[in-house]
C-alpha cells in the first residue's frame, strides 16, 4: 500500500494490513517532526512546524518504483508506505514505512532501503518554519 495523505497516519491499520500468516518479522519506521534542526551555523534552531508539499502523481510513481525494487531484493510479504502532506506540528508523524517478511534481517534492510531511497528520489519537499523565518530543507547551496 502506498499513499500520500493530508490526514494523520494510523499505525494500527497499517499493522493490520501487514499481518499475514507467513510473516515472522515486521519492521516499522516512523519519521517524526523533531523540535529542532541544525542551522547553517551548526547551532541548534528551534522548529515550530513543518510544511510538506508533494508532486502527488509523480511521488506515488516514484514510491512504487522503490517498493518494486525492494520486492526484487528481499522476500517481502507486504509493505506500507504512507507519507503525510500539509502542515505538521512537533511530534506528528510525517512518514510511516512498514515491511513484513519471513525473517527479521530482511525486514530491517528493506525498511531502511525504502526510507533512504524515498529521501533521495521522491518529489516531496519539506519547509521548516521557525519563529523568525522559514527554510526549504536542503534546497539552497
Amino acid at each position, binding site marked *: 500500500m502506498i499513499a500520500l495523505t493530508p490526514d494523520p497516519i494510523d499505525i494500527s491499520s497499517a499493522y493490520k494490513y501487514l499481518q499475514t500468516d507467513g510473516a515472522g518479522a515486521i519492521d516499522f519506521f516512523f519519521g517524526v517532526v523533531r523540535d529542532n534542526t541544525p542551522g547553517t551555523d551548526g547551532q541548534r534552531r528551534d522548529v515550530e512546524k513543518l510544511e510538506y508539499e508533494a508532486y502527488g502523481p509523480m511521488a506515488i510513481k516514484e514510491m512504487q518504483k522503490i517498493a518494486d525494487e525492494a520486492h526484487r531484493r528481499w522476500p517481502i510479504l507486504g509493505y506500507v508506505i504512507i507519507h503525510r502532506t500539509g502542515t505538521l506540528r512537533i511530534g506528528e508523524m510525517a512518514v510511516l514505512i512498514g515491511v513484513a517478511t519471513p525473517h527479521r534481517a530482511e525486514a530491517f534492510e528493506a525498511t531502511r532501503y525504502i526510507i533512504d531511497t*524515498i529521501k533521495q528520489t521522491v*518529489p*516531496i519537499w519539506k*519547509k521548516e518554519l521557525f519563529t523568525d523565518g522559514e527554510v*526549504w530543507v*536542503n*534546497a539552497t547551496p
Partner: protein
Amino acid sequence: MNPVSVLLFGIARDLVGQSAITCSLPKQARVSDLLAHLHEQHPALAGIKSLLVARNGEYAGADARISPTDEIALIPPVSGG
C-alpha cells in the same frame, strides 16, 4: 515556437511566485533548453542547489525532448521523509 506549461514546487514556486508558468520554446526543444530559458526568465532560480526536470511524471535527462502535450515539472532538491 511551442507553449510549454511548467509546474513549480517548493522553493522554485516560492522564488518564481507562481505554481505554474508557461514558456515559449522552439519545437524539438530539449530539457536543457527549458532550463536555460527558465534561468534567463527567472534569475532567482539560481539560488536553488540543483534543479531537475520531470516529464510526464518521470525524471528526464538534459537531452530529453519536450512536446507541448507533456506534463513538465521543475524538481528542486527533494526533502521528504
